[in-house]
């Protein structure tokens, strides 16, 4: 028995040593499926939709800001969590996405980092990853600088502008605080990654 078990373990060990096994984590889902998923327009959230979610205080979403830390401190969408893109890729994004009931909306300054991250998350099998179309640039343009210029306002437009105005008020409230206070406010909402259970603690 000793020899049999030794032989088995030795062969497995050899296999592990030869193949570059661990640390190895590739996309899980089938490539064609991934293409279909990420080209589906429903992975996009427009900035107006995001503004509505913020104004309504929806707790089933989580906004992740992929910009560098210093930019996030300067101005960020209220309630979002800062995970710089480099960190997001190097770490295991699972910790931010493992609650499949919470939709995670990714955004950066523009459309690049957020969309890389979107494919990255979807590829690793997280169906709850979404992206805010246009990023913070689009947010600033649409929400912060929105002025109604038409002559007659319809009820629908009225509701839209109302939400935009409220979202931008929330945004300005936080971002107008003095630097030190704002840093506290923003870091307070910093997301703490779910700690893994285990050990004898």
């Amino acid at each position: 028995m000793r020899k049999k078990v030794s032989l088995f373990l030795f062969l497995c060990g050899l296999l592990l040593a030869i193949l570059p096994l661990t640390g190895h984590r590739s996309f899980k889902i089938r490539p064609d499926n991934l293409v279909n998923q990420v080209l589906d327009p429903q992975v996009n959230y427009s900035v107006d939709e995001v503004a509505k979610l913020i104004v309504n205080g929806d707790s089933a979403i989580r906004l992740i800001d992929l910009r560098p830390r210093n930019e996030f401190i300067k101005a960020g969408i209220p309630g979002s969590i800062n995970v710089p893109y480099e960190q997001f890729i190097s770490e295991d994004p699972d910790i931010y996405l493992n609650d499949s009931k919470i939709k995670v909306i990714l955004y950066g300054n523009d459309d690049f980092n957020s969309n890389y991250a979107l494919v990255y998350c979807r590829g690793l099998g997280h169906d709850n990853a979404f992206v805010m179309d246009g990023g913070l640039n689009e947010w600033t343009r649409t929400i912060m600088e929105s002025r109604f210029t038409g002559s007659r306002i319809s009820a629908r437009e009225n509701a839209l502008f109302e939400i935009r105005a409220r979202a931008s008020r929330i945004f300005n409230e936080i971002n107008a605080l003095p630097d030190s206070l704002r840093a506290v406010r923003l870091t307070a909402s910093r997301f703490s990654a779910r700690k893994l259970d285990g050990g004898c603690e």
Partner: protein
Amino acid sequence: MGPLTSAFAFSEWLNLLTAFMIGIGFGFALEQAGFSSSRKLVGMFYGYDTTVLKVFFTAAIFALVGSQILNYIGLLNLNQVYVNEFYVYASIIGGVIMGGGFIMGGYCPGTGLCAMSIGKVDAAVFIAGGLAGAFLFAETFPMIQGIADSGYRGAVRINEIFGISPGLFSFLLITAAIVMFWLAEKAEVRFARPEITNEL
């Protein structure tokens, strides 16, 4: 993909039921291995019975190899599996205290529970001592908190320290274990105590 708890968000009762089932498997395996006998366990330290070494290393390596292969073929995400956090001083001092407790009591907590369940009175007393030990720890915690929390290194993996791949480290560990198995069987012959081992 595994671990199943993070893939499917287990409800509390299901989580506790799994814990209970895994505990049954754990207790069964320990008892079958003969870990419910203190004289068999301490035989490790006097050389007449090296079951502990054989079972312990076979189990650890089997789980190690199994988890890495499952990780490779995409069934288990090892990043979601808990890695013990390393507190340098607490690990060493705690380990030495445990070593003393092991040779005095003849059990470790898991094997003690298992031996208690088949009616070993000494094991029941060992567990009673264990309850007292946990109580004592809780009461003296403010005093030793400094030691317990110092030297924190985070959840480091050993292959990262040596700068080699986990697979290569596993291979080296397996080779070492195979040599140890062979030495252990030599030792059992050399330090044989038939009057003890026949009784077990």
